[in-house]
Each structure stands twice: as structure tokens, then as C-alpha cells.
């Protein structure tokens, strides 16, 4: 147990370093912008005095290091500045739009694990047979198109052609659910409204699946590759010699050790989904961070762009810490070790 605490401390330290780097990178991108940020913020009709005032207010006349200092000081106070697009604090905007995106990504992540891992297990168990080839083909197809193409294809097939799922949105207008967490699947349950929950779940299936498809392919391919490797280990041969059932061998002896390397990549895929969520949200008119993100990018709303990217990087770093801890819990060599293993 102590080793896990030490691992956590180490991971948090690395995460802090990475986040400082991310803040520098984002600050750098925002400052290499051709043109004067104050002029862009005020528009072409503002007077030279107004621009000079805003420049002073934004500390733009000071050395770049001092500017970065102000930026970090604001960050530490939880102040991401004001959005030029909505005229509200960026934190307020993000708090409003982030839950919808996270909900979509989490459901997609569950699909990725729930569908991808079993497919990979099947392919490894029936290696070289028809099922293996079929799964390889399907998972390659999954990673071969951007999620917006899958979104369009899924909408055409399962919302228009076969009207099984809704075309867009998070929930039907007839339901009103008080906002507590912003996660509709949680809020509907908190309100005790089972039918609204069902409706929200029905709305999330297609967008989450479109988002998950490439992850499902990745997870299946990875699990297969790792399991094929473990199948060659002597202890599997021993289990087979003892006459254990193939299903039991697959589940316990071959799958468990191969889960650990798969999990790391699944963490990375989760990050990729935060990006692809932008594309899926656009197709399904999902009221998440994407529409806000694209809108502020088109308006060159610097504070909002920096805030959005920072929040996404933060989410990614947190997910990776969770994945690392999960691996530590799953891996007996780390769980039971008394030495520092990080």
C-alpha cells in the first residue's frame, strides 16, 4: 500500500511539471499570434487610446516573462479571464459546457472497454481463424475513419434510414431536469426521473458509439497482440496440460497479464476522444465544449481558447494518473512491493 502512495506522489509531481509546461506552451501559442491581441479583442473600430488602455490592462507592454507571471498568478486564483464571445468568465462558460462533453467521452470510454477488450480476447483465443480475421478487419475499419465520418454514417443508418435513435441533442424537450452535476445521466437519476434517464441514455448511444469506434478498434488490436504474447508463456502451456477449460485459461491466465499494457494505451485513447468529441458534437448538435471551442477559435477569443485547451490537458493528466493507479492496483508486483517502484 505504501508503494502506491509513493507512486501517487511521484505521478502528481510529474503531472505538475507537465501542467506547467502546458501553460507555457499555451501561453506561447497565444503570444505568437500575428497582430495585437488587444486590437483583435476590441475590433477594428476601437480608437488607439482604447487599445492602449486594454494593452496596459492585459500587461501587454511588459516583458514576456512578466506577462507569463501574470498569466500564472491568474490561473492559480482560478481566473481564466473573460470570454470576448460570451462576455462571461471563461470558467463559467467551461463549467456549463464541459459536463456534456465529459459525459459523452466517459460513455464512449465504457463502450471502448466493454466492446474492445472482449473482441480482442476472442481474436486471441481463435488466433488465425475466421473470427480473428473478421475482428482484425472490423477494428482496422474502426480506426480508419475520423469520428465525424462514423457519426454521419451512423446517423444516416440508425436515425434516418432505420429510425431507431434520435437525430441530435442530449434529451427530448419534453423533459425538464434540474441541473445539479451537469451530467444528464446523473441528474435524471438524482431527480428520480427514470423515464428522463432512459431518454437521455437513448440520446447518448449513437454519438458515444461514433466516438468510441476508433478506440474499440485500438483496444481490440492491442488486447489481441498482448494476449497472443501471453499465450506463448510456459504457464499457459501448464494450464492447458492440466486440462483447464479454454475459456477459463483465456479469462484468467491469458487476459489478466495482458490487461496492464492495454490500460496505458486506453488512457491515451481517452485523450484522443476528448479531441474527437469536437467532431462528434458538431454532427449531433451536442451542447458540449465543442461548439463553444470552435466558436471562440473562429472569433480569436484568446482567453477562452487558452482556458479550453488548459482544461482539456488537465482532464487528460488526471485520467492518466487514474490509469496509473489502476495499473498499480492490478499489478501485484507494484501492489505488494515495499520498495519504491515508480
Amino acid at each position: 500500500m505504501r508503494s502506491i502512495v509513493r507512486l501517487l506522489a511521484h505521478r502528481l509531481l510529474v503531472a505538475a511539471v507537465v501542467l506547467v509546461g502546458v501553460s507555457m506552451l499555451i501561453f506561447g501559442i497565444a503570444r505568437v499570434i500575428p497582430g495585437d491581441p488587444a486590437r483583435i479583442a476590441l475590433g477594428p473600430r476601437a480608437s488607439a487610446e482604447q487599445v492602449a488602455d486594454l494593452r496596459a490592462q492585459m500587461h501587454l507592454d511588459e516583458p514576456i516573462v512578466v506577462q507569463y507571471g501574470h498569466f500564472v498568478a491568474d490561473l492559480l486564483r482560478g481566473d481564466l479571464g473573460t470570454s470576448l464571445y460570451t462576455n462571461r468568465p471563461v470558467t463559467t462558460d467551461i463549467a456549463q459546457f464541459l459536463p456534456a462533453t465529459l459525459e459523452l467521452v466517459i460513455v464512449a470510454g465504457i463502450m471502448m472497454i466493454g466492446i474492445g477488450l472482449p473482441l480482442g480476447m476472442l481474436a486471441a483465443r481463435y488466433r488465425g481463424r475466421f473470427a480473428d480475421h473478421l475482428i482484425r478487419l472490423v477494428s482496422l475499419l474502426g480506426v480508419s475513419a475520423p469520428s465525424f465520418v462514423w457519426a454521419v454514417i451512423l446517423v444516416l443508418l440508425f436515425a434516418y434510414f432505420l429510425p431507431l435513435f434520435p437525430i441530435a441533442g442530449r434529451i427530448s424537450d419534453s423533459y425538464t431536469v434540474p441541473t445539479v452535476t451537469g451530467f444528464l445521466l446523473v441528474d435524471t437519476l438524482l431527480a428520480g426521473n427514470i423515464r428522463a434517464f432512459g431518454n437521455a441514455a437513448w440520446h447518448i448511444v449513437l454519438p458515444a458509439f461514433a466516438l468510441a469506434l476508433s478506440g474499440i478498434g485500438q483496444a481490440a488490436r492491442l488486447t489481441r497482440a498482448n494476449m497472443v504474447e501471453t499465450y506463448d508463456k510456459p504457464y499457459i502451456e501448464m494450464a492447458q496440460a492440466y486440462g483447464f477449460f479454454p475459456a477459463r485459461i483465456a479469462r484468467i491466465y491469458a487476459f489478466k497479464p495482458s490487461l496492464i499494457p492495454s490500460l496505458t494505451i486506453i488512457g491515451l485513447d481517452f485523450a484522443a476522444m476528448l479531441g474527437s468529441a469536437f467532431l462528434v458534437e458538431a454532427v449531433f448538435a451536442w451542447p458540449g465544449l465543442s461548439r463553444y471551442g470552435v466558436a471562440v477559435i473562429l472569433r480569436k477569443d484568446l482567453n477562452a481558447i487558452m482556458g479550453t485547451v488548459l482544461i482539456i490537458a488537465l482532464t487528460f493528466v488526471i485520467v492518466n494518473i487514474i490509469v496509473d493507479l489502476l495499473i498499480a492496483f492490478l499489478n501485484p508486483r507494484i501492489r505488494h512491493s515495499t520498495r519504491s517502484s515508480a
Partner: protein
Amino acid sequence: MKRAIRILSRNPLSALGLGLVVLIVLAALLAPWIAPYPDHNGAVVDFLNNNKPPSARNWMGTDLVGRDIFSRILYAYQTSLVLAVVVLAIATPIGTVVGLIAGYLGGWTETILMRVVDVFLSIPPLVLALAMMGVLKPTLTNAMLAVTAMWWPWYARLVYSIARSEREEGYVLAAEVIGAGTTHIAFREILPNCLPAIITKMTLDMGFVIIIASSLSFLGLGVQPPTPDLGSMVAEGANYLPDSWWLTVFPGLAILIAVFGFNLLGDGLRDVLGVDR
């Protein structure tokens, strides 16, 4: 080379991949000659024939201003392939050098370089590219710049992990003992052993760069009209579903086929070159 092609063609899926890639490269190269309406790659309008479903005259239908979608897809392949080749031609050497230096030298150089790489890798590629396009003007050159800026770290990490394990190998030690310089060991001794992995990754990445670039233009932040681009074609048509399905389905399938081809080929190369990562 001949051996590689022979091994590739023995596996039906890899052969399919090779075939698709050759087909797409040819389609892009020969677009001006094989496109039924070569002038439709620009700002042409033909309102008499706008938004027509697929027919013998227009195999994949026409778009909202009457341009032939099949012709535009052929030209869009040019845009995608050029972009992917340029991005990889810049990102791969940068990432390789960074990874080699970090992996072979170790110590503080390793710590600093790889932390920088971690920073880049902790922002989803698409989000970083979007943020860069947010401050730059949406042009083809800037799209290439944005995608390149987020692509090199992946090569740095790949080469780093190989170089770090090769550092301990006997042949590196032998070279050190006879007094070979750092540059010689890194580029002449270690680099050749990274090449199979790099080539495999580049093949797979041709597809992934096409995905990211089309995603940028799908959101209106990449290549701008009237330059034909698969991503913006899908975006244009998405508002006219389901009636004008051909506006989105054909460009979407065009992306799928191209990326699928590069993925199959990359997968096959992995086996041929014996790459295990």
C-alpha cells in the same frame, strides 16, 4: 524491396492495402486527366445541375453549386496526400533527432527533452492543432504547420524508447570502446535499428494525418474552399442529410478508403520488417 512486396502480397489484407494505396496515389497524380470534369476543382458553378443524385453523368452526384463530386474527390486526394507527405517529411526528422539524443545521451538532456515531449503529448492532437489554427489564418500552409507541431513528439517518443534499449547493446559499447563519436554512434549505429519502426509508423501515420487534417477542415479551420478537401465536403453536406446523402457519404467513404489502405499496408509492413512496437 522485391522480397518485401512478395511477402506483402502473400497476406491478402496487406495486398489489399498496397493496392488501395497505389490506387489512391495514382488517382491523385492523374486527377487532371481522369477527372470527368477537371475544371470542377475550383470555384465553378453550374446551377442547372446542382445537388443531383448519382447518375451516369455524375457518378457520385453533384454538390450544391453543381460541381461533380467524383472529380472533386480526386483533387481532394491531392490536397490530403501533399499535406500528409509534407507533415511527415518535417515531423519525422525532428522527432527522430530529439528521440535519439534523449535516448542515447540520457541524464539531464533526457529528462528535459522527454518532459517537453510529455507536455505536447498531454494535449489531444486535434485540440492542439485547433488552438494553433485559432491564432493562425486558416490556410493549407498553416494547417501543415499546426499538424507538424503536434506530430513530432510521437516520433521522439518512439525513437527514444528504442534508442534507450539499444544504448545497452554490445555493438554500441563496442563502438564506444574503439572511440567512435557521439554523433557517429547515434546516427550510424543506433538510427539504422530504429528505421523499421519509423517506416512502419510513417505508413500508418499517412492515414492518421489525413484524418486530423480532414477533421480540421470539417470544423472549418483547415483548407478553405474552393480548394477541394474531403473534410469540408463532408461538413458542407452534413446539413442536407438525409435527402442529399451523396454530398457526405462519398467524401466520407473516400477518407475511409484512403486511411484504411495506409493502415492495412502499415500493418503488413510491421510484419515484414519485424517491428514489435
